[in-house]
């Protein structure tokens, strides 16, 4: 809820500048990797809204990710491209509606029970999609053409172009960040922050907390659907794994590791986990081992996640610089 100190803001702006300039120095592989990471960052931010700000820890958030991806599949004809302007809003709407229905059912639970019941819904989607012939079952399905951004005969971007795709995703990531910042600062945002700290008190002050939790759930779901859509657009492939608890677990890890309740922490978490994975996988077949050790160490040593360390480092560096000046 509090605005960030100047050093942190500066750091974020510099990082953004770095991301904008990145394509000029990177290989195609890293361009695609960073696109993938930014998509995960959108997913992680949406979960942060739910977990970090509203206090609703969900282990089924990947369900909405999968819904966004499969909506693109369903809207993509086999021998042509779907329209970006139709399919993207559709994916977000489908995810939001699913969040509405699921939210009404799961938001009566709290604590560990909430974690489990969200997990259950994620798993139910997984099994349903695995068993459904028309979605390709457990093998998944392909999307042969990237969504087409043509509007009135003119295409502002070509999503099949890696560079265009990169900047498209970057723009969306920044837009999601700014949107969520605004929402957190709004009366709605203050209510959900209060709910996270003490829902009972919020009710006794007069807030009907259920509907606020439900709306937060829907916003998070819609944004997760956006991320899923982008993921499907990038790879042209969807599979039931997208709904599963492993995906949900990985996203939650990114949020916690990056720093819950900071909004930029999950972005850092996404970059950290994905880049670490690349680094470790390059060196050993058993890359999950150093990955697991890193996570364990991070929990023991970083109480507020990476963002906690970052803030201390950045502020220290700033003070150092200020003293020299």
């Amino acid at each position, binding site marked *: 809820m509090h605005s960030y100190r100047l050093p942190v803001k500066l750091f974020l702006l510099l990082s953004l500048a770095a991301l904008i300039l990145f394509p000029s120095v990177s290989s195609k592989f890293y361009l695609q990797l960073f696109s993938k990471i930014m998509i995960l960052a959108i997913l992680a931010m949406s979960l942060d809204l739910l977990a970090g700000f509203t206090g609703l820890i969900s282990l089924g958030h990947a369900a909405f990710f999968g819904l966004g991806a499969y909506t693109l599949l369903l809207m993509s004809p086999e021998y042509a491209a779907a329209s970006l302007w139709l399919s993207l809003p559709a994916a977000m709407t489908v995810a939001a509606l699913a969040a509405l229905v699921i939210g009404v059912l799961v938001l009566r639970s709290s604590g560990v029970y909430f974690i489990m019941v969200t997990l259950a819904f994620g798993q139910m989607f997984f099994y349903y999609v695995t068993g459904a012939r028309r979605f390709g079952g457990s093998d998944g399905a392909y999307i042969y053409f990237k969504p087409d951004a043509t509007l009135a005969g003119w295409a502002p971007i070509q999503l099949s172009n890696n560079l265009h795709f990169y900047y498209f995703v970057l723009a969306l990531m920044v837009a999601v960040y700014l949107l969520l910042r605004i929402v957190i600062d709004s009366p709605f945002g203050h209510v959900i922050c209060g709910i996270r700290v003490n829902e009972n008190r919020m009710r006794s002050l007069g807030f009907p907390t259920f509907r606020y939790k439900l709306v937060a759930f829907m916003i998070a779901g819609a944004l997760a659907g956006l991320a899923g859509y982008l993921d499907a657009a990038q790879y042209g492939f969807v599979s039931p794994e997208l709904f599963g608890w492993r995906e949900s677990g990985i996203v939650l890890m990114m949020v916690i590791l990056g720093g819950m309740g900071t909004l930029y922490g999950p972005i850092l978490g996404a970059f950290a986990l994905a880049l670490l994975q690349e680094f470790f996988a390059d060196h050993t077949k058993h890359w999950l081992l150093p*990955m697991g050790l890193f996570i364990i160490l991070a929990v023991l040593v970083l109480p507020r996640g990476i963002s906690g360390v970052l803030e201390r480092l950045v502020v220290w560096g700033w003070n150092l610089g200020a003293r020299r000046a």
Partner: protein
Amino acid sequence: MSDKVIFFLIQVLNGAQYGLLLFLVASGLTLIFGVMRIINLAHGSFYMLGAYLAFSFAERTGNLWLAMLIAVPLTVLIGLLLEAALFRFLYDRDHLYQVLLTYGLILVLEEVRSIFFGDDVHGVKVPDFLNFSLRLTPALSYPVYRLFMSAVCVAVGAALYIFINHTTVGMSVRAGALNREMVQSLGIDIGLIYRLVFALGVALAAFAGMIAAPVASVFPGMGNQILIISFVVVVIGGIGSVKGAFIGSLLIGLADTFGQVYAREISGMTIYLLMVLVLLWRPTGLFGRAT
């Protein structure tokens, strides 16, 4: 009796056997959560470790019982080492950090298993004296080993019940679950209780992995698979309730078995549907207390 009825009875036996096996794993999980307030995602990894250790020793000694005799204490030792090195830092931390740390632990244990035992799927031989079937009809017979498994699980369950409800140590465990400060002020070392409960939970999971090995084989994903189902059982039964874990496991065992046989299309979903229904009816599980 007609073949159809026998077939139905066989499914009941299968469901009960699966459920009883789940009970061993889930009871450990619910005890650890109920007494130590720790969510241990790596619980399934102990199940897996037990199975792989049993397989490895059984290969070498040719004797499954000997293998179990070595493997169970070994797994408990590993568990206690982990408790001393990692878990004790989790006692008063937010559940989220427990989830995150034990998730990292799953990754580590999986890779350790991969390094030491490889990634192959292994079958384990049923001990010879149990390796026969009871003929129920000309067409249907039932493996005696499965009956043996169920009997063993029931015996272990009974022993657990007696331990928790009728011994002084068991009483300390129950007291520790309700009010740890009180237990400490009575002069009982709560750390010792925690270690005991943790060791018990690990032993149960490892033992379950071992006796299930001849039936379910030994494969890389087995830990994660049983973990998630055990969590469903614990939530349905109510966190911290061994009685709840018992009833929950039987419900899940039967639901899953019948689901696979009579409702193929939705078989994967049955246990989750069951959990959602139970939670809608009783938001803290069948026998859980609102924490």
